[in-house]
């Protein structure tokens, strides 16, 4: 019986709330509880985001406090 492969990361939608130093962003997740994560950009870093922008963030199951912004929403 084959098993479905484990997803190593979870993609969650969120909204940028704050710009942090070192090209980090505070992103509020559109999940219950509206948890927020400190997220970095997945790509080249040329993408500039402003508070209010919708994004999709990858979150590792073992570290819910950090994320990786994969694309705009």
């Amino acid at each position, binding site marked *: *019986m*084959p*098993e*479905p*492969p*484990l997803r190593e990361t979870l993609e969650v939608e969120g909204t940028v709330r704050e710009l942090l130093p070192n090209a980090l962003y505070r992103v509020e997740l559109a999940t219950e509880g509206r948890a927020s994560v400190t997220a970095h950009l997945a790509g080249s870093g040329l993408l500039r985001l402003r508070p209010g922008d919708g994004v999709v963030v990858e979150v590792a199951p073992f570290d819910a406090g950090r994320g990786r912004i994969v694309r705009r929403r």
Partner: protein
Amino acid sequence: MARACRIVIDTLDLLEEAAVPGTTTADLDRIAREAIERAGARPAFLGYRGFPATLCASVNEEVVHGIPGRRRLAEGDIIGLDLGCVVDGFYGDSARTVGVGRIDEDARRLMETTLEALHAGIGVCRPGKRVGDIGHAVQSHAEARGYSVVREFVGHGIGTSLHEEPQVPNYGPPGRRERLVAGMCLAIEPMVNVGGPEVDVLEDGWTAVTRDRRLSAHFELSVAVTAFGPWILSEPYPYAETGEEAANA
């Protein structure tokens, strides 16, 4: 584990004979359960993550995880039979796709290629190779014949539980993923489609079908990596037994 695998293969032999036009998949499930229990084993799938049966019966465009039911097999169908059992705490897991009555040339060729792809994967199971080499061998074989391999489901380590580390995909670059060492046991299981590789899971939460609804075949064997190469656990130990190896086998 060799005993568990042997029981699975013997039961699959029974099911292959029983898969004739007019039989329902529920009939096959009953035969499977009775045969496994008669052999002193326990079905491994029944209740596993809520799966409701002993056998996964996947007809034609169904890839894997088909739930047995009232469906009657018809002449020309192909059916994937996937079965697992537990003996003394050890698991065996194997699958094959069989034709019902006379099947057409396209179906026969798909089944033949899938079985060859499985053996291509098994062939690389020796210490020093990596899990990615298995997937690469399977994928290369299937795609060279114009088929595609399913990515949404993967093979797995097997032992005292049904699904163990590592995951064994049927695709991907060689030389990647975990290194194989003697003593590892893997369930290698290519799922090969005539059309595209995409699959959908039906509303029952289990049955996986090809998105384009074209044919799919599935073969699986549980294999141990030994110092001398692969050992298909349902078969006798294939290497000359000498010294230390004999003690471990």
